[in-house]
């Protein structure tokens, strides 16, 4: 193993200017953000950046030698794609370090209109193999690809070994059914999906029902879960609901869990991952600060200690506290079967 593998960039989420500052202040190398519309996949009321806050955030990060990425990671919807084009133009004008794109039509536009702009391929592009990534590089000069959370660590290595494109993987955050870029589940309940509207369970369709016994979560009238007294709640997304299937009620698709790769950081560094991404632009500055600080410490320790590295209980505790579902897994990275 080469002793001097560079540490992967720590890429942290920002849904607001204070969250961006919290990420930078707590050790993020890079912060990613979105604009206040459906061009990004965290299109929530009151979240994200306008021109003023984006400029201030970029200035704050650049003064401290950190990078800012702009996520334009939904698919331009027929009828009016000008919003997506404007978002790309705005990103180039703001001077972001890269634009994260999912839609290959938008990659073509960005490459043609802004030949100097660095482009990343979003997880929403759903590129799980090096042929897809290399094609995007050939066609649009994509410099980095974010891998969907479906590959084992061996498979991630296989991709890295066969491409010159930098590879970014998810390191921490809420998990869902993990068919990124292909998930239409919420549209069956609400008519809106992450790719089309940039939101999975649009808040306007969510109702919390406070009964005497349980807290009910309804999405457009459909009961998707009931939390008993003292039971942890989760995000009201269809994939994490409990449903009655042949007389039995259980998590029929996915249990609310968070991904946490801390224990495999040495291997992640070793196979040459370029960046580790933290999920959660919808979360508060408090979450961003806590997660960034913890992963910064862990990543630095993993770089120093390599195979002697072990996860400190305090790190696990800090991350468990903020995790959805209060349980953490290695997700697909650690799947013994092939």
């Amino acid at each position, binding site marked *: 193993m080469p002793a001097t593998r560079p540490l992967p960039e720590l890429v942290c989420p920002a849904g607001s200017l*204070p969250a961006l500052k919290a990420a930078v202040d707590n050790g993020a190398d890079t912060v990613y953000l979105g604009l206040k519309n459906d061009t990004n996949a965290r299109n929530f009321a*009151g979240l994200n950046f306008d021109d003023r806050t984006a400029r201030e955030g970029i200035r704050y990060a650049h003064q401290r030698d950190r990078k800012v990425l702009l996520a334009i990671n939904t698919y331009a919807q027929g009828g009016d794609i000008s919003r997506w084009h404007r978002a790309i133009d705005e990103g180039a004008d703001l001077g972001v370090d890269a634009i994260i794109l999912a839609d290959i039509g938008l990659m073509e536009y960005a490459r043609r209109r802004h030949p100097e702009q660095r482009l990343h391929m979003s997880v929403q592009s759903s590129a799980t193999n090096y042929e897809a990534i290399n094609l995007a590089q050939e066609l649009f000069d994509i410099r980095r690809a974010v891998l969907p959370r479906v590959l084992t660590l061996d498979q991630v290595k296989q991709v890295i070994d066969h491409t010159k494109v930098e590879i970014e993987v998810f390191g921490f955050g809420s998990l869902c059914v993990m068919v990124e870029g292909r998930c239409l589940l919420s549209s069956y309940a609400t008519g809106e999906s992450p790719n089309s509207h940039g939101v999975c369970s649009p*808040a306007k369709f969510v109702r*919390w029902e406070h009964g005497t016994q349980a807290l009910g979560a309804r999405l457009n009238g459909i009961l998707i879960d009931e939390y008993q007294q003292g039971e*942890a*709640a989760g995000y009201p997304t269809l994939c994490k609901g409990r449903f009655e299937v042949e007389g039995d009620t259980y998590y029929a698709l996915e249990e609310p869990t968070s991904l946490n790769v801390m224990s495999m950081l040495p291997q992640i560094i070793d196979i040459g991952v370029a960046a580790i991404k933290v999920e959660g632009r919808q979360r*508060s500055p*408090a979450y*961003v*600060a806590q997660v960034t600080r913890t992963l910064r410490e862990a990543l630095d320790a993993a770089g120093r200690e390599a195979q002697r590295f072990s996860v400190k209980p305090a790190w696990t505790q800090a991350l468990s506290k903020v995790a959805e579902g209060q349980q953490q897994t290695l997700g697909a990275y650690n799947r013994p079967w092939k």
Partner: protein
Amino acid sequence: MRIPELTLPAPVASLLGWLPSTPPCWALVSTLNQLKKRAILPVDMSLLAGRRFEVHVLDAGLRLGFCADEDSFHTASGSEEPDLRLSATLADFARMMLREEDPDTLFFNRKLIIEGDTELGLIVKNLLDSVDWSSTPLQRFMAA
């Protein structure tokens, strides 16, 4: 500054519950209006206008009702059901405001109760998250 795990004792709560909620409510509303006036609270009033809010401090037995119009916040009286009610203990509200604790975490742990219009709740949560306290004297109390 860490907020201790603390629930107000029941006698304090019952005492506070008997006191009129007008003074604390007035204080809340004038603070919001001051923050708005000084552009510390980056609020788009069109999203809040015409809506009624209630902050329910569970352990203090205190219900602070207020509403918004296109220009400012006002105290609201009467028993009309609010469009959005946020309930938590005093310590948890303090943790949330000082960014020691993430509202989603409190919600997952059932310590923050959101009732009414979920989207309005998200607007309010994101509004509080977007306040940049670094430009104010309160910054030194903030955890993040």
